[in-house]
């Protein structure tokens, strides 16, 4: 007959050997290992100030016959702290979902119960199979004046706790980030990058509930972002990119009128179009190359200039940029 008991971290635990008398001679084991007599008070096992490592199987055997008299499984844990609850509508106007977690583990099994009240009506939040700790609700009505009240209760063998969220339908609207962000150089335009993306697939009705977008971009070598807000369309051309520099670009989405901005999309990298190396030559070499083939050049001169003292730092970069500009200006003369 196996028992299970849950005790709080730091508690003092007394285990009785079943129906044995206090003065009976017994031996206790923890996970098969004998426990020293100093922990015994008669036939009772005393564990003071238990910690997590003391979880396990405790067995009590009658002294002489080594008969198993009692067995229990001890699990040391904590009662739940106030859970963290978040509700969000990434599929407006279909509905919303709530997800939750405990700020610190309890080390013992917990059960969660979620209730959603809208005015006087109780609504059912259907639990998701994956991920766990998440449930979703469909809106029955749109444009409600009455708030939603979501209460999450966590219970385990050592206690319970709860948290409540109250919100308006509009306040929790937050789309998923835009998808399929693509950034491409524009041929013959050394300062342009063409960025395009798609509405997040979870947004069910972009026709009636259009999204607006926020684009941010910067060259990898700088820390400061540039921002553009776009009220419609799913593409944008950056026209002030630094020539030849690799850029990192991200896009975020928001319902046109309500709610908050999505998280940033996955970052994409792109470098604006640069000219073919054969144009970037000195005057002397030009007369040579008109007869020789261009494949004899192994690397464009700009790279050579930048390679000198090739420590990545603002000084070297300034040299690169200056060289880049000079070469770009020079090459324009030869087009």
């Amino acid at each position: 007959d196996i028992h299970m008991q849950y005790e709080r971290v730091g508690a003092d635990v007394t285990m009785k050997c079943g129906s044995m008398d206090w003065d009976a001679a017994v031996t206790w084991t923890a996970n098969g290992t004998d426990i020293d007599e100093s922990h015994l008070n008669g036939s009772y096992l005393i564990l003071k100030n238990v910690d997590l490592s003391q979880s396990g199987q405790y067995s009590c055997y009658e002294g002489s016959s080594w008969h198993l008299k009692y067995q229990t499984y001890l699990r040391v844990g904590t009662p739940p702290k106030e859970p963290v609850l978040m509700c969000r509508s990434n599929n407006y106007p279909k509905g919303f979902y709530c997800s939750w977690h405990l700020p610190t583990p309890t080390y013992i099994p917990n059960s969660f119960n979620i209730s959603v009240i809208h005015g006087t009506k109780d609504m059912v939040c259907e639990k998701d199979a994956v991920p766990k700790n998440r449930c979703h609700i469909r809106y029955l009505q749109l444009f409600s004046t009455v708030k939603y009240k979501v209460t999450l209760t966590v219970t385990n063998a050592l206690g319970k706790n709860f948290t409540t969220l109250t919100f308006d339908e509009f306040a929790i609207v937050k789309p998923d980030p835009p998808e399929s962000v693509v950034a491409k150089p524009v041929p013959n335009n050394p300062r342009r990058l063409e960025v395009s993306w798609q509405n997040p697939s979870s947004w069910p009705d972009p026709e009636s509930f259009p999204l607006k977008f926020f684009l941010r971009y910067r060259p990898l070598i700088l820390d400061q972002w540039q921002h553009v807000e776009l009220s419609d369309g799913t593409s944008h051309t950056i026209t002030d990119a630094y020539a030849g520099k690799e850029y990192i670009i991200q896009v975020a989405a928001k319902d046109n009128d309500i709610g908050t901005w999505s998280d940033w999309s996955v970052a994409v990298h792109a470098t604006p179009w640069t000219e073919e190396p054969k144009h970037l030559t000195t005057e002397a070499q030009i007369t040579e190359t008109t007869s020789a083939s261009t494949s004899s050049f192994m690397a464009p001169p700009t790279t050579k200039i930048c390679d000198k003292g090739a420590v990545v730092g603002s000084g070297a970069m300034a040299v690169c940029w200056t060289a880049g500009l000079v070469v770009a200006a020079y090459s324009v003369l030869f087009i």
Partner: protein
Amino acid sequence: GDSWGIFTFLCAALCNLPALPALNCSEELGAGQSIQQTYDLTRYLEHQLRTLAGTYLNYLGPPFNEPDFNPPRLARAERVPSATVDLDLWRGLTDNARLAANYRAYSRLLCYLRVLDGQVGTAELRHRLAHFCASLQGLVLSIGGVMSSLGYPLPAGPAGPPAPPGTPAAPNDFLKKMDDFWLLKELQTWLWRSAKDFNRLKKKVPPAVVTLRLEARGF
């Protein structure tokens, strides 16, 4: 006592909007542009309302100005048509029905706000309310303009008694404040809804309507 009668009279007097003048200007602009302007107006009003509501709720005092205040809706007859609607029903509204719902709602809301204006204590509030009412009147006219340019008849005016005569007036100060709280809530929700209504209308108004009018002007 007789406060209900006074209330009805006030509303009837204040809500006697003049018949809409011949809207030649909006006909020239075309329905598409008017819809955009109406949309912009709702966004502007929504923004204005945030400040106004904050000030007014502070004037009402606690618990009305507490952010978590979430009272149950009392079983009093709703004075203003609610913005709340079943999703499929909302999607299926004809352009005419959609516009008419907005027109009726804001006409009534304007009416009640004007009554409020006459009652509030502080000069600052009176000033804000007056300014808001003026903008709200602009919205009602703008919606009316869109309806006219699309050839829809305007809904019957709000000049009549705003609620069934059987509705009792707020019997005490607290319930009166509660009524004001719900009025502001309903107004806020309508402005959120209108943004979506006009988004939908923007997509649905056929470009041909605008083109036709431009051609008529000899472009």
